[in-house]
């Protein structure tokens, strides 16, 4: 493959991180075209399958006993973590959405964490992936709002308790802020992942460039940054789930 050849040449030249953006490149593993659509099986697709496989293995294996094993305790902690967060924000009205939020949370968390493994591919570092996830959330929240409240859901855009002459300014602002939700939700996740991985690659380049004598300082920095990135990987999955629940809460119990 052309990309791999170029990558190999760059590594042979001694500059592992000559191009910090190379890690985000999508390569076709099984090319496949349907009409004008490119439906190839790419490395991104492969890693999504791996993420789903790891999620399923984590949740299905490990047994379910009355006295839990260590693995089962971790499973119950993840469940209780998301369920408790939903109870705090949504109350009992949102029990039906727990499977959706839990699936989103687990997918993003495992995708971010697997992205920290060297030579892996971070699925969530591509805006098209995160934007699709955010769009699903946005459409679901809007649909739930209209099903629950009918046309009354449009009152969402009319803030209560403000003088009437302010409304021509405030309604457009509310509408814009509502429709930028999927954009901010997706860019937040994608930008965090991409910026973090680019930064790690740049520091790795410093280690190589400074060699065996001076490379220790950036190497120590790399260890600290890897810890920070693991925190960010968890935090972004959590924030995505929390914001999903907040949007659902806006739709179910209208506050305006």
């Amino acid at each position, binding site marked *: 493959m052309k990309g791999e050849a170029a990558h190999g040449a760059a590594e042979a030249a001694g500059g592992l991180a000559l191009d910090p953006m190379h890690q985000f490149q999508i390569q076709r593993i099984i090319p496949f075209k349907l009409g004008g659509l490119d439906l190839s099986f790419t490395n991104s697709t492969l890693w999504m399958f791996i993420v789903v496989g790891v999620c399923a293995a984590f949740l299905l294996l490990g047994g379910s006993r009355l006295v839990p094993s260590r693995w089962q305790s971790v499973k119950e902690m993840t469940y209780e973590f998301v369920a408790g967060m939903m109870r705090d924000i949504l109350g009992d009205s949102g029990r039906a959405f727990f499977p959706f939020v839990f699936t989103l949370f687990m997918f993003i968390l495992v995708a971010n964490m697997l992205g920290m493994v060297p030579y892996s591919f971070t699925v969530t570092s591509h805006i098209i992936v995160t934007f699709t996830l955010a769009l699903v959330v946005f459409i679901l929240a809007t649909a739930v709002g209209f099903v629950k409240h009918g046309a009354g859901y449009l009152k969402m855009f009319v803030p209560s308790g403000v003088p009437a002459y302010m409304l021509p300014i405030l309604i457009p602002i509310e509408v814009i802020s509502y429709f930028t939700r999927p954009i901010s939700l997706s860019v937040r996740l994608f*930008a965090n992942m991409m910026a973090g991985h680019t930064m790690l690659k740049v520091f790795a380049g410093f280690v190589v460039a400074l060699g065996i004598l001076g490379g220790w300082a950036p190497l120590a920095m790399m260890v600290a940054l890897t810890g920070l990135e693991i925190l960010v990987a968890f935090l972004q999955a959590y924030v995505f789930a929390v914001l999903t629940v907040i949007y659902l809460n806006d739709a179910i119990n209208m506050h305006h």
Partner: protein
Amino acid sequence: MEAEAAKLIGAGLAAIALGGAGIGIGHIFGNYLSGALRNPAAAQSQFPNLLLGFALAEATGLFALVVALIILFVF
């Protein structure tokens, strides 16, 4: 001015906005800490809000970083 030089200057200017994110994150953690020292009993319940505020503030800075990267790598 050459287009390449203008690109680099523009990317650098866009990255200045990350300073704002730094100020915001400092505000959030500083205020959380001072609040938590005044009332340690209430601190734990506000920890999720702390993380949420941190992520929201960080994201605005990263939007600017994305602009910088778009200038560098897309155009």
